[in-house]
């Protein structure tokens, strides 16, 4: 049951560093999944401009100089792509939301919004978003929910360890009976981005002439990356002539690329961070630490609810590998790794369920100046129309 049957259904936005999910609350899956990227006409990848004034022509000829989503794919090879949630480019975020609202035919002045906050830097982000939504879009009310709670909500549970393997952050957080530990979320500097870079470096070592952009490398990574239970075993297999791991594909310039050990070595830093010169603890050790933030008696409950989310959790065989490693840390405890289907959207689904079951209640943050601004906007609109007449 939704909180308020009369007001329009709120919009849930999960602004990830790589992907954004947008959809009406109460639905099963987000209606729009789009990359959190922006490209601007004139911001070419090719920087050696002999006659810079040529770019002025773009202003005359191109009406909408910003590219998002599918349009970005068409210009990916031409323009610089910015992940604006990583660079904290708020103007870009504003353009992005404006574009999405137009596309989804949503009137932000009438639509309440629910934002999912990441475990890290949630507070600063919520401040900025609130200001943007109220002042720029005049949203009637807004609600922020921490991603970790959304995840637990999907399991109808209030305890568990959530390991979120995002593109820009890898965060492990343990919640017991709805309460965070005193230590707070644990962070690991092995992220999706660094894994992509590492893969790029390994490809570069093998094929000197490959010059793939970050976006293209990420696509390659999503296609090939895989976890293995024992790296040494897999390496031995390859040395003995096994072609089990071979993966061939052709780059746009016709050069063919054959990967084998790179496929599992590129994701290995989650378990051996020193491979990419990171001093972080391996993922299983961090999860173990998150569990140990609570008392001995509560640990079995947490160990049986380790939930994986984020883009990194989709890499094949991660559950088996993590299970194998966790059992080494907690040999006498029942360890259970939960990786539900559609886990890349888990936060969004959780938020949607939270709304459906009335979990938000009266915790909305109302826009105090909403009516005043609405009036003002109406007046200025009428004024314009009159002038036109």
């Amino acid at each position, binding site marked *: 049951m939704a909180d308020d049957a009369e007001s329009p259904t709120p919009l849930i936005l999960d602004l990830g560093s790589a992907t954004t999910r947008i959809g009406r609350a109460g639905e099963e899956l987000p209606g729009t999944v789009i990359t959190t990227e922006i490209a601007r006409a004139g911001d070419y990848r*090719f920087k050696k401009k002999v006659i810079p004034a040529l770019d*002025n022509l773009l202003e*005359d*000829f191109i009406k909408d100089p910003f590219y998002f989503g599918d349009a970005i794919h068409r210009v990916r*090879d031409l323009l610089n792509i910015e992940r604006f949630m990583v660079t904290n480019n708020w103007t870009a975020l504003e353009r992005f939301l404006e574009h999405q609202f137009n596309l989804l035919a949503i009137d932000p002045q009438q639509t309440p919004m629910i934002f999912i906050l990441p475990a890290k830097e949630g507070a600063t982000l919520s401040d900025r978003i609130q200001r943007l939504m109220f002042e720029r879009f005049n949203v009637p009310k807004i609600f922020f929910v921490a991603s970790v709670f959304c995840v637990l909500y999907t399991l109808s549970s209030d305890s568990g360890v959530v390991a979120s393997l995002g593109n820009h952050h890898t965060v492990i957080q343990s919640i017991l009976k709805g309460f965070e530990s005193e230590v707070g979320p644990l962070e690991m500097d092995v992220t999706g981005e660094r894994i992509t870079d590492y893969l790029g470096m390994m490809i570069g070592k093998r094929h000197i002439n490959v010059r793939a*952009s970050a976006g293209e490398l990420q696509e390659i990574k999503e296609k090939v990356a895989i976890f293995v239970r024992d790296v040494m075993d897999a390496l031995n297999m390859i040395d003995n002539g096994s072609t089990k791991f071979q993966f061939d594909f052709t780059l*746009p310039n016709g050069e063919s690329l054959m990967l084998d050990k790179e496929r599992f070595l590129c994701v290995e830093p989650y378990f051996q961070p020193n491979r990419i010169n990171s001093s972080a603890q391996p993922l299983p050790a961090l999860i173990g630490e998150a569990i140990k933030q609570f008392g001995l008696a509560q640990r079995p409950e947490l160990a049986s609810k380790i939930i994986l989310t984020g883009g990194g959790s989709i890499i094949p065989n991660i559950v088996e590998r993590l299970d194998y490693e966790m059992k080494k840390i907690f040999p006498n405890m029942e360890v259970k790794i939960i990786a539900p289907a559609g886990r890349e959207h888990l936060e969004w689904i959780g938020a949607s369920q939270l709304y459906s079951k009335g979990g938000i209640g009266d915790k909305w943050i109302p826009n105090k100046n909403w009516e005043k601004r609405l009036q003002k906007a109406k007046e200025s609109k009428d004024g314009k129309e009159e002038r036109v007449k």
Partner: protein
Amino acid sequence: MSQKSLNFSEFVKIQMLTGQKLLRQGSHSWAEATFDEILSSLERQKDLSSKSKEYIRSLVVQAWQARIQDLNRDQSPEKWLFLCDAYHHVLFLLFQNNSFKEIAKICQSLVLSLISQKEISRETLASILDPVSEFLLKGGFRREALEIQLAMMLIRGSAKSSDTLNKLLQYLASIVLKLGLNFRPMFFYVLFDNAIDFFKLEADRSARNELVSSLIETCRNAVSLDIRDPMAQTSKFIHRFQIREVKDDFVKLVQKLEILNEFDWAFGIIRNFARLLIENGLVEEALTLSQEFSEFSIRRGFYQFGFQGYGLIGNALAERGKKNELVALWYGAARMFARSQQADLLNESIKKIDEYLDPPQTFADSQPYFETYNEIWNLKSRLGQTIEVDFWKMILFRALFEERDIKIAKLAWNSLPEAFKSKCHPTGQIEDAIANQPKPLVGKITHARLVIRLVDQQDVDIYCTSPKSEEYLEIHSPEPWNCAELEEIFSQILARQRDLELMVFGRLIYLNLPGEVRRTIRSFKSESVQVPPHLLFIMDKFSLPVGLIHDGTSFLNLKFAVSSLIGPTSLRGTSEMTQDNPAAEKLRLLFIANLNAKDPRIWDEKTQKEEPLYCLSETEEEVNDLIQFAHKYNNVESISYLIGAQATKDKILATIRELQPNILHYAGILFYVEENPGESYLLAPEGKIISLEEIFQVFEEFPVRPLLVLNVKLVSKKGDFILNAGYEAGQLGSLQSKYFLTGVLTRFAPIFNADSLALFKGFYDCLLSRKVPEIGVAVLKGGQQLVADKALQQAITMSRTLDDKETKVIHFGGDLTAASFLLFGLPWRKI
């Protein structure tokens, strides 16, 4: 060399295709990366000429330009996004090559295509041209830069002050102030009228004059005070001037500017003035004026303006459809540029000839057509600018019309590009027509010795002499010798084993010789029946086997005692060299063979033991045979030999010193040192190096320097066998003049077989029996004997299979074994 460049050209081809495909798909970055690979590896290509590099760079530019053309036809919303990026790429490539004029051209056409569109602001268009003018100024094209600035003023409707404009106006003032008062309005008029050309208007004279007037108004405020008044007077000048009245003043202005060395401006005026003259029906005068200007500027060393002047005449002629005159005009220009060593302008002129010279449609047409290309070949040869198509057209002409050699003419015809052939008449006509042609007349030159000096890209000199008479004949060929193209074909034959007969190859070298040389070789007859004629080639570098040249009757090495001298020897010097030296009574021979029979060794995985790396047991057999053979002769004073592992360095040097041989024969491995061929070395069995120079130092102690016979396989310093060692053989051969040896006998393709042994036996038989003391003649006789024996064998085999009704022709083409022997030194030198 050819192998490498072949691979590289294939690489370029593949990358270009990939790049073009990527461009069509809109993947600009990937295309850029692909092209970058070509361009960066281009820098590393040391063997490639700068002309080829330039060509490959232009291919990349063309690919981007094609992309721009495609995009211009495109109607998608993102068209301009891609178009601007493509423009950035093209302009950057051109900027890197300092092609400022090209940049100006591209920007001009872009601006002209946009100028009618209302949504584009005038300021945007002017700001595109602003840097163009700056580049032109930087590149030294001040007149063009100023014209662009004036065009910008017309676009903007006002003069916007900038550094470039100020500099250009100052420069303008400096020119104007050099001119007399009455010339100044005329000068400005032409300047402004030319600037209006930027817009490529098809306006009539009065509309143009109006534009000029408005431009004067705009520009007046920007210029300094001292030239403001004459500029104002220009408006008056426009209204009252009649071309017939001011004609002479124009000519005087041009002359004045020429004398002031302001050819750029003189050209600007000529261009404008010629147009005015033609508009008024004074075509002849326009042409004469342009012709005078071109010739004058070429004489003064302003070749580019000379070319542009020819261009003006060319355009005027082209408008009137006078193709023959156009060809004649550009041929004249090409000759001028070839004489003044202007390779680029020569090529440009030849491009124009290509454009206007129609491919022949009848057999009668083909003679003048291919004759023109024969001349073009000669012009291009002087500057080393020839390409393969030129080569085959030249060969076709010489084979067909000078030598009447249908076989080679056919080969040349087949080698011409299909695109060209499809425009010509069918080949059948040529064959029919040639069948009835008489053979060329053969003259008669009777001397004993023929010396031909061949220096790449230079005229050929021929010197015919007799040892005992004072009379001599000196012939100078006005056509140059070109070796580069032949070298290419030669390396193709041996490296790629292209299907080309030895005789055809010999004919190709022969046809490449200038007509005068061919006539001399054909007409040359020896004075006496007993003495075979001597033929000496003096060459700047050796890479072609001259013995293989086939004059239509025989290979030269089977007809002449051929030898070569490498280096800058002059023809005059050879008169002294033709003096004979006395022959020795008895000969001392030293044979050295197969020094590396046991060492160095390499582990062989198959046999599981160490195997010698450079063991040539054939050489041992060859030398043993020769030693036994030489023992029969009474004129041999002594024969010594050092074979295999026993011959240490000390032993070899001591033996040479003690024996003082007349002939030192070495068969085996020679390590070739590219940087200094004199340091090329034999590897003694104990691992010590014996360089050729060390041996030559021992020779210096002798009263008479020996003949060095090298039947060697050449190995590079890295230990790889050198194939097609023509150039290396030449380098080794040239040591004979440096160390005053009697001669060096070596070969470009080492063969250790029965034929090779037979040839050596023939050679030693002549020398040791003292029937023939000259080394060149001994080699000739050896070769002739070998070929005769082979022909006899062939005839016997044939006769066995011959029945009564059938007749078979014995065709004996030539023999590579014989041809591979090269004598460096004077063929008449005795031993």
